[in-house]
């Protein structure tokens, strides 16, 4: 799609792989909205089962699904990595992943059912370690790395580490281990998840797409070269040192909050210097996401010194707003482009244009639904009844996303069945 490294059309995964991982993310989003109606304001108590379930619906069900969609699509493009048999590998990951997430959610909900934790560990551990090592192996073979490919490698290392940490935690919760180091491993698990995996992957991809999609000046060299690996190094060092210096995570989290805030400011500045500042919902999703990241990191840093529940809740809510906003920004670029590009490259004269796959106004409407959803979440900290509205808006937001994927897929199939092919052949 973008790089100078080389996308060969036969290296790109089938469009169905990308579609179905996105649809999986949207489906878990709808499930999240329904579960929110069930757990309601309990989710703001970090020790509750509602918080545990909803956190993993968000991180595993939504974020991991769409990030896998992005990785399957972008690895050949950004890094020139060819994943052999991508459709088969997607199957090996997707079905165990869905079953594993559902098992884990049930295990969290029902408490001490050991076999559910074991089943979730086998399914999630097996599929995620398989795909992360498969992708890391291919990335390490790339002769010339870009800042994006280096960052994606760092993010995948974080994924593998957080999964290994999760296996220790589920073993403890299932009663298979005594869990002597439970607290340290739990901190490492969520730190690698939020900072090393989600944030670093978004950062790495932004190095490539911000300049390309929005014609902005390039990122400064220090961000390009050192940010992703710097975050991975900090997390790895804090994880090891935390066994001897329990307070080390506080320093690490403070530095990470500072680094991510600087990244957000740099990116916002780049977006303000666009050469063709056309109004576009995806730019607003980026702005909302980056603004949310700054507020999240501010609350996160404050929460290190002030033990106030609502500051912690705001830190996680705004982090969710950051991650989801960027997901939607990428979604509204990727789905129309892929539908049009796959059909055009197959030679369909009647391939729908990108605005016919998803109209820009549709994306703008989703932006306002997303904003309303986040506002309802935040306001529910003051007016608890608003959590029901947040739940409904979550279902609407992900239902909206799911509908766009199904619409694009039907349009794709219809064009393949009924479309006329042109011949560009020389």
């Amino acid at each position: 799609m973008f790089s100078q490294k080389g996308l060969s059309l036969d290296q790109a995964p089938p469009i169905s792989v990308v579609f179905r991982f996105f649809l999986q993310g949207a489906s878990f989003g709808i499930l999240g909205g329904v579960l929110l109606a069930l757990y309601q304001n309990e989710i703001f108590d970090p020790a509750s089962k509602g918080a545990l379930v909803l956190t993993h619906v968000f991180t595993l069900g939504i974020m991991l699904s769409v990030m896998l969609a992005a990785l399957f699509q972008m690895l050949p493009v950004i890094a020139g990595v060819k994943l052999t048999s991508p459709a088969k590998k997607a199957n090996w990951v997707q079905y165990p992943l869905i079953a594993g997430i559902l098992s884990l959610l049930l295990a969290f909900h029902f408490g001490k059912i050991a076999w559910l934790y074991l089943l979730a560990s086998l399914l999630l551990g097996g599929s995620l370690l398989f795909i992360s090592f498969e992708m890391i192996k291919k990335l390490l073979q790339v002769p010339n790395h870009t800042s994006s490919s280096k960052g994606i490698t760092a993010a995948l290392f974080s994924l593998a580490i957080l999964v290994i940490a999760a296996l220790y935690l589920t073993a403890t919760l299932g009663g298979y281990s005594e869990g002597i180091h439970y607290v340290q491993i739990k901190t490492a698990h969520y730190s690698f998840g939020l900072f090393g995996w989600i944030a670093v992957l978004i950062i790495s991809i932004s190095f490539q797409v911000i300049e390309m999609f929005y014609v902005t000046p390039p990122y400064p060299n220090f961000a390009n070269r050192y940010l992703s690996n710097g975050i991975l190094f900090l997390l790895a060092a804090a994880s090891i040192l935390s066994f001897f210096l329990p307070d080390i995570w506080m320093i690490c989290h403070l530095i990470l909050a500072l680094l991510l805030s600087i990244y957000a400011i740099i990116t916002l500045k780049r977006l303000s210097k666009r050469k063709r500042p056309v109004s576009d919902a995806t730019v607003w999703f980026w702005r909302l996401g980056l603004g949310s990241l700054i507020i999240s990191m501010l609350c996160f840093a404050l929460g290190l010194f002030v033990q106030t529940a609502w500051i912690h809740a705001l830190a996680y809510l705004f982090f969710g707003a950051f991650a989801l906003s960027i997901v939607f920004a990428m979604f509204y670029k990727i789905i129309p482009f892929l539908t049009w590009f796959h059909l055009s490259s197959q030679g369909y004269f009647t391939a729908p244009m990108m605005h016919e796959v998803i109209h820009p106004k549709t994306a703008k409407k989703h932006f306002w639904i997303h904003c309303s959803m986040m506002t309802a979440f935040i306001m529910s900290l003051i007016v608890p009844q608003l959590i029901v509205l947040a739940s409904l808006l979550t279902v609407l937001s992900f239902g909206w996303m799911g509908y766009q994927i199904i619409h694009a897929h039907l349009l794709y199939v219809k064009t393949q069945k009924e479309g006329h092919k042109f011949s560009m052949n020389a």
Partner: protein
Amino acid sequence: MKKITLDARELEHPKPLAMAINILKNLEDADYLYMIHRKNPVPLIDLAQEHHFQVLSREDAEGTWHILITKNHSVDLKEYLFV
């Protein structure tokens, strides 16, 4: 040879690709596309080569890419390159 110029340096992705593909669909034997871009548009080059076009892509000293595409295999595209 008739030159069809596409200056895509300030166009947001994926407009350069969409516009170039539209030009290629209607390209005559005596035409060539001269595209100027801030990146090397590998998907376009790939697509053009798969459809048996002749393609030439060069980066100039300022980092701007010049991409020449024609149906005609009897011409030497280097003669039309301004780098």
